[in-house]
Structures are given as structure tokens and as C-alpha cells.
């Protein structure tokens, strides 16, 4: 019987499987015969089975074995993700055993075959590097190789090893035999205070040596400070942190976050602030301060064990370390002064070098007066003011957010939607302004520090700094001035607000031209900030703003109508009631239609209209408007506005001899004002 000339693929696959499995059922030496027997003349099938049997023999057990079971529980998380490379050979280094798995890869004990010496080989797997990064990495390694000191673990060699298409940078360093950590060593040897200080001085010498060769350690922590079997200190990983940054190796979030977590208590505030560029020798001074604190007290200066990363960073940046004297009485006085000077958050107040720190420790050991001074009372006061300023800054930022949030009501919403992305733009600007204010207000500046800091001081200061620092960014600068101005106006400090609003207006005119809604808005804000002595300008500003809006949006627009009521109010104050009434009658239906019958703008228009009509002697019409205005303002107006209208209406009634009718309105107005100002406040008459 002939087989079909062409078997379907799946049938063929079945045959293959059949023969393969049958072959496996017999002992290995009989398999070839079994395959030949089962395949008959199908030599190609026989060849395939034979090949598969060969593949089977070569396939490693790990092939397609599960990487993990799905039924993992949260507790199973501690197994290292990296597999052990022990036994591998990398560029002439044979990995003997894995010493540690850390934030930046694993460290192996390795044998450098050529020199027959043991080294510590740090492998940075998971690092990313391009040709540039490789060059920087190599250059940095060269610099490190030149740092030689008996207490610094020598860098021997570095390079990149290619594994499965990925570059794995490595550094070969001096192996520290029988090494234990600095703190463990001190405890094991039961070192006393003075011996601990001497041990620490050795560390300082090593670090100082690196500094003198232009290398900052940047990752000083007990894990990097080892003591070998003969009691010698060895500082490891000198400059490696920078090497990784330079080489842009530590670019994965995993490495970064984990590394930061491990190192956090020893990172200086400036490093935590994220500005790696400012980190200098004083950052190492800080880290040494933390190590000294631990060495003396057995604990960290800040208790951040159970805090989130962000919160921990915040604590290190803002809080004072726990007093050493609380740990042990002997740590009072000079020792605490030394440690705390090393731990100063402000760079300028810290020891300016490791040498200076070491010098004070030597002085302490030889009972000489130390050079560091405990913070003065004046300084303590300043710190207090700064803490208050942080509070002020917090209030400011909240205020900004609230204002900008609130700004998107009324006609601003109308403009925002029409302007499309304006709301988005505003949000982005809000962020930048908030950032600016926060930066300025929480930064250290002696001019502010000694003053009794109020929001007003903070505002002035912010605006002054803005002029100096935002010259290149007129848009943000104008926003800051507009904002500061508006806050002053709301704080009833209109003359102060006026100055800022004028600046904002000038800037914005230049930026956006004379027919822009933002310019119109600023004009309106400025007009509100001006007092009765500037009525001409008030009218002019309101009128200009109205013109701009009318050109942009036409007569049927809410913002145009609202602008008309503002012009009307100005005209009314200048005694031109008839013109005002005309404008108000034009505006009112539009405002009601567009913003709703109980909008604050309706209340404002009606109250203004009532005033005008009263002055014109149209008492009946005035009374209707007053009552309508009061009804609207009861729903949607701030209490002072309602009180104003109530009080005006009461006066209106009195003037007509309707004293009794006036009483409840006057009483209600008085009550509102009393509530607002607190009992005993002077009655407030509107102009």
C-alpha cells in the first residue's frame, strides 16, 4: 500500500510525534533501529526524528520550565530576580561566589586569572548604556583607578561584558577579606567612645584623600565602610555612584528607587532635593555626619523606617535630627555640636570640608576647644521665622490654587471656553506660579528671616524676587504681579494691589497687544483696585475693557454685558446717572439670560441700577430694583455685598420717611456686619 503522496501537515506532525515517543520507550542504544523500523522508507521522517532526539539530548532542563508559579503570595517576594552567575567567566574573571545583591546589581568574589588574585567584581545588570555612556563609564573608571589609599578599596579594572545581547558593565575592585561593616565592627569589638571617634577619623582620612583627587564618594553609608580581618578600614564604592550617573547607567526606576531607599538616611538634603549638581564635598560631609551619629548613638538621626519615600525625604529635608544628648548624656555638648554641624541642612552652615570635620574631632579627642559653635539664639530665632515662613508659603500656595480655581467662574468661564485651551493654559500657569511662590517663600533669605513674617511680607518679597528672577519669562512675571495684586485687593489693601496690577497690565499689553481678553481682565482688576480719587481712570479702564470685549465677542455676550454694568457703576459714581441707567438696561437682560437670573453679576447690576434711579428721583422704580437686588443677593452674593444693599435700601426708605419699614433691613445689615467683623467692631458705612 502506497502512502499518500502528500500528507497534511498535522497528520505528518502526528507521525513525527508517534515515532518520537515510540523511540523514547526503548533504551537509548536501540533507538536508531526503532526509528528506522517505524519509518520504513520514509527517510525524511526518520531524519527528522533523529534530529529531534538529538535536540532533546541537548535541551537544557530550564527550557520552557516555568519562571514562577502563578499562585504566588505576597510573601514570596524576597527571592532575588537575578540568577546567580557563580562559575561564569567574564573577561578573565572567574566568579567564585556571590557576595551580595544590591541596588546596582550583584557583587561577586572573583578570581582574576591572569594575576591569580581575588577581586570583588561588581556587575551592573539591567543597566542601559550606549556608546557615549560606555565612554564616560570608562573615563570615570580611569579616574577611580588613580585613587590609591590604604583605606580605599582600589579599583583595578572595569569594562562591559556582553550577555545575551545586553551590555553588562562591571568594575573589578579590591576584595576586602573577612570584611564586616563599620558599625558591626565597633559593636563586636566593644569600642568605647574615643575608639569609635578614632575609627571614624580613619574613614575621614580616606574620604579626604578621594576629595583631594577630585572624587566625591556620594554614597557614604555603613554598608560602604568596611573593616577587614586585620582591623583596617576600607571605604568601598568610592565614586561609583557618580560613575553610574555619568554613565547614565542607573536609569531604570528600579535601580533608582531601590538605591534611594537603601541610601536615603545618608543622602544630604541637597541630594534629596534632586539637584545632583549641587552635591559637592559637603554632601559627603553630611553623609559622614550621619555615619558618626550612628556610630555614637546606634541609631539614625531621623526615624524614617516606616515612612514612605516621599515623606522620608521630606523629613530629612525639613526636620531637625533627634538630639544626641537624648541617647546618652556623654553625647551632650561638643560632640553634639560637631555632629549637628556636619548634619546642617544648609550647605553654608555645614563643615566646609571633611578636613574641618576631622579637625574638630581631633580637637575633641585632645580636649582642645572645638571650632564649631552651637547655633546662636539669633539663629534659632531665624529658624523659627523660617518655619513660620513655610507656613506662610503654604497658605500662599493654597490661596493661589483657590484663587485660580475660583477664577474659572462667571465671565472668566465664558472666556475660557471660547478661548479653547485657555483653561488648560491657566492650569499650567497656575502650577508655575505656585511653584515660583513656593520656591521663593520657602527658600532661605535673611531679609525675610528676621522679620515678623506676614502674608504681606511674603507677597512683597515674592513680587520683588519675581522682578529679578522672571525677567526672561514676562508671561509668568505678569501672572505673578496680577496674582499678588488681586490678593492685595481681596485683602483690602488696594493701594498695594494697584502697583502690582499696573505692572501686570503694562506687561500684558506688551505681550498680548491692546485687544486681548487677558488685557481686558487685568484692566478690570486694576479698576477695582483704584479708589474714589481715580474715578476718571476707573471709568477709562472699564470702558477700554468693555471695548476690547465687545470687539472680541459682540454685544450679546455675558462678559460684554458684565463690563457694561461696570462702566455704568463708574459713570454713576461720576454723577452721570442717565448714561449709567441706559447701559444697565442694555446689560441686564443679557446678563440674566447668559448667567442666570440669580447670578452675582445680576445682583451687582440691580443694586447699581437702584442707586442710579434713587439719585435720579425715580423712587418707585428704585424701590423695585432694590427689592429685586436684595432678593438676588440673598441667594448669590457675599454677605458684605448683601449688607451694603440692605443698608442702602434702609437709608432709601428712611429718606422717604418710612422709618419703620427701614428697621428690619438696617438691622439685618448690622447683624451681617457684626458677624463678619466680630462683636464690638465699628459699624461700617459704605461710601
Amino acid at each position: 500500500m502506497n502512502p499518500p503522496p502528500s500528507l497534511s501537515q498535522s497528520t505528518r506532525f502526528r507521525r513525527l510525534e508517534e515515532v518520537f515517543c515510540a523511540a523514547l520507550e526503548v533504551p537509548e542504544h536501540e533507538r536508531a533501529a526503532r526509528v528506522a523500523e517505524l519509518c520504513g522508507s520514509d527517510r525524511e521522517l526518520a531524519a527528522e526524528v533523529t534530529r529531534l532526539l538529538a535536540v532533546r539530548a541537548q535541551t537544557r532542563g530550564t527550557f520552557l520550565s516555568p519562571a514562577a508559579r502563578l499562585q504566588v503570595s505576597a510573601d514570596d517576594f524576597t527571592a532575588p530576580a537575578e540568577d546567580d552567575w557563580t562559575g561564569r567567566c567574564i573577561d578573565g574573571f572567574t566568579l567564585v561566589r556571590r557576595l551580595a545583591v544590591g541596588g546596582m546589581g550583584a557583587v561577586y568574589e572573583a578570581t582574576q586569572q591572569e594575576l591569580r588574585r581575588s577581586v570583588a567584581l561588581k556587575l551592573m545588570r539591567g543597566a542601559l548604556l550606549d556608546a557615549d555612556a560606555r565612554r564616560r563609564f570608562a573615563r570615570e573608571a580611569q579616574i577611580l583607578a588613580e585613587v590609591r589609599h590604604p583605606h580605599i578599596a582600589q579599583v583595578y579594572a572595569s569594562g562591559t561584558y556582553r550577555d545575551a545581547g545586553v551590555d553588562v558593565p562591571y568594575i573589578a575592585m579590591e576584595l576586602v577579606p573577612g570584611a564586616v561593616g563599620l558599625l558591626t565592627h565597633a559593636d563586636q569589638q566593644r569600642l568605647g567612645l574615643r575608639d569609635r571617634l578614632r575609627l571614624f577619623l580613619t574613614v575621614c582620612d580616606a574620604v579626604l584623600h578621594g576629595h583631594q583627587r577630585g572624587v566625591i564618594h556620594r554614597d557614604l553609608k555603613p554598608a560602604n565602610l568596611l573593616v577587614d580581618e586585620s582591623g583596617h578600614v576600607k571605604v568601598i564604592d568610592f565614586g561609583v555612584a557618580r560613575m553610574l550617573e555619568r554613565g547614565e547607567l542607573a536609569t531604570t526606576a528600579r535601580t533608582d528607587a531601590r538605591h534611594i531607599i537603601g541610601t536615603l538616611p545618608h543622602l544630604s538634603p541637597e541630594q534629596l532635593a534632586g539637584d545632583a549638581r549641587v552635591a559637592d564635598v559637603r554632601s559627603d560631609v553630611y553623609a559622614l555626619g550621619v555615619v558618626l551619629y550612628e556610630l555614637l548613638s546606634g541609631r539614625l538621626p531621623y526615624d524614617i523606617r516606616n515612612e514612605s519615600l516621599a515623606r522620608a525625604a521630606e523629613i530629612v529635608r525639613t526636620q531637625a535630627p533627634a538630639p544626641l544628648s537624648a541617647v546618652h548624656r556623654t553625647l551632650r555638648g561638643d560632640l553634639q555640636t560637631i555632629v549637628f554641624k556636619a548634619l546642617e541642612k544648609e550647605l553654608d552652615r555645614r563643615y566646609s570640608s571633611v578636613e574641618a570635620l576631622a579637625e574638630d574631632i581631633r580637637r575633641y579627642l585632645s580636649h582642645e576647644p572645638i571650632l564649631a559653635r552651637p547655633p546662636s539664639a539669633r539663629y534659632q530665632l531665624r529658624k523659627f521665622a523660617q518655619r513660620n515662613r513655610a507656613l506662610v508659603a503654604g497658605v500662599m500656595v493654597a490661596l493661589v490654587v483657590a484663587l485660580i480655581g475660583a477664577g474659572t467662574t462667571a465671565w472668566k468661564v465664558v472666556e475660557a471656553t471660547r478661548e479653547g485651551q485657555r483653561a488648560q493654559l491657566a492650569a499650567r500657569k497656575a502650577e508655575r506660579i505656585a511653584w515660583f511662590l513656593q520656591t521663593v517663600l520657602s527658600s532661605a533669605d535673611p531679609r525675610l528671616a528676621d522679620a515678623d513674617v506676614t502674608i504681606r511680607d511674603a507677597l512683597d518679597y515674592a513680587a520683588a524676587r519675581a522682578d529679578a528672577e522672571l525677567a526672561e519669562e514676562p508671561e509668568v512675571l505678569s501672572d505673578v504681579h496680577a496674582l499678588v495684586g488681586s490678593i492685595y485687593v481681596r485683602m483690602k489693601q488696594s493701594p498695594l494691589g494697584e502697583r502690582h496690577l499696573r505692572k501686570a497690565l503694562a506687561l500684558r499689553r506688551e505681550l498680548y497687544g491692546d485687544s486681548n481678553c487677558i488685557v481686558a481682565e487685568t484692566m478690570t482688576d486694576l479698576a477695582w483696585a483704584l479708589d474714589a480719587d481715580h474715578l476718571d481712570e476707573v471709568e477709562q479702564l472699564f470702558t477700554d475693557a468693555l471695548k476690547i470685549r465687545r470687539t472680541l465677542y459682540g454685544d450679546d455676550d455675558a462678559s460684554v454685558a458684565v463690563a457694561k454694568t461696570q462702566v455704568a457703576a463708574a459713570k454713576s459714581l461720576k454723577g452721570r446717572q442717565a448714561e449709567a441707567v441706559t447701559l444697565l438696561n442694555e446689560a441686564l437682560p443679557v446678563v440674566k439670560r447668559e448667567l442666570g437670573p440669580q447670578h452675582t453679576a445680576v445682583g451687582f447690576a440691580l443694586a447699581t441700577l437702584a442707586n442710579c434711579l434713587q439719585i435720579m428721583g425715580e423712587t418707585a422704580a428704585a424701590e423695585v430694583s432694590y427689592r429685586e437686588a436684595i432678593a438676588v443677593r440673598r441667594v448669590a452674593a457675599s454677605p458684605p455685598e448683601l449688607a451694603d444693599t440692605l443698608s442702602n435700601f434702609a437709608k432709601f426708605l428712611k429718606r422717604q420717611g418710612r422709618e419703620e419699614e427701614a428697621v428690619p433691613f438696617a438691622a439685618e445689615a448690622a447683624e451681617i456686619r457684626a458677624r463678619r467683623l466680630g462683636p464690638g467692631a465699628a459699624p461700617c458705612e459704605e461710601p
Partner: protein
Amino acid sequence: MSAESQDEVTRLLAAVSSGDKGAVSRILPLVYDELRRLAAAFLQRERPDHTLQATALVHEAYMRLVRQDSVGFCDRHQLLAAAAVVMRRILVDHARTKRREKRGGDAVMVALDEAIAVFEQRSGDLKALDEALTDLAQLDERKARLVELHFFGGATIEEGAEILGVSPRTAARDWEFARVWLRDRLSDGGVSRSASDGEANEPA
């Protein structure tokens, strides 16, 4: 995660395990969301020498989505089967994109990179494996599912046998052959005469 989305996941998983391919796509964003949340939580833990076990992370995220007690449907076998499908998709999709795009600082992406590294350490290029597995499914669906269950889902061969409704012995044979067949296929660059050669035999 909310009870609603958990219900949604449950529903989608039921659809996945009954072979609805579209359900896989709909479930992925939910898994990623959970992953992102988890990864962030992990990075905030303060444990100096703690290794972020990425593979476990992926699994954990997945298992959170399908908390057994809240799963209304089926037995855990069905769940496991669906999980294996989803795992395969997540890993293979990520393996496809990861070399094209420069990786950013996204913790999830990093976690997935690591997970893939673990898988590839064992079995070579994931994309090629995925393709070979798809081909295998054309020829023998059951074997392909067994590989998926075992390799991506972490099921034992015995569990796989139960899920697929075959005897353990059959499953073991299936596994032995599928594994070698896939290995062969991956080693000679995807050309496999046993499957793709329709020219067949010489006449007897």
C-alpha cells in the same frame, strides 16, 4: 481596586477561558493599572536589600485581580488557564515593544523588562517562542495550551493534564514532544521541516 472592576475582570476572565480573544485585549488595561499601582507601592517600601521580584510582581498583580474569594466563576483551573493566556500576552507584547522604544523610568516597564529577562534566561527569545507556539497550536492545539499553561502560567504538568482533560501520562508525552519540537524550531531559525514541509514523503 473597586468591586466593580473586579467583577469586570471576573467576567472577562470567564470569557478568556472560554476562548474569547477580544476579552484578552479588554483585560490587559486592567492588569496594567493594577501593576502600576503595585509597582509604585513596592518602590516605596523601605527595605535596603530587597529585590523587586518582577516576575512575582506581575503575578501578584494578576492574582490581585482575580482574588479567589471574589471570583464568582469556575474552579481555579479555569482561572489558571485564563491567567496563562494573559501572562503570555503581557510578556510577549512587552517584549515586542521594548527594543523599539527607549525605556523610560516607568516602574511597570522596568518590572516587565525584568520579568522578560527571567523568562528569556530560560527559554530564549520570547517573540520567537510566541510565534512558534502559535504555529504549534495550528498543528496541535492541546500541546500548545499545555506549554502555555506550564511555561507562562506556572501550572505543573499534572495540573495541565487536569485542565486539558487528559491523563497525566498523555500530558507528559505531549510535553516532552512539544518542548523538543519548539526547541528544534527555535534553534534553526524558525524553519522546521517537520511542520512546514508539505512535500512529504517519497513513494514507497
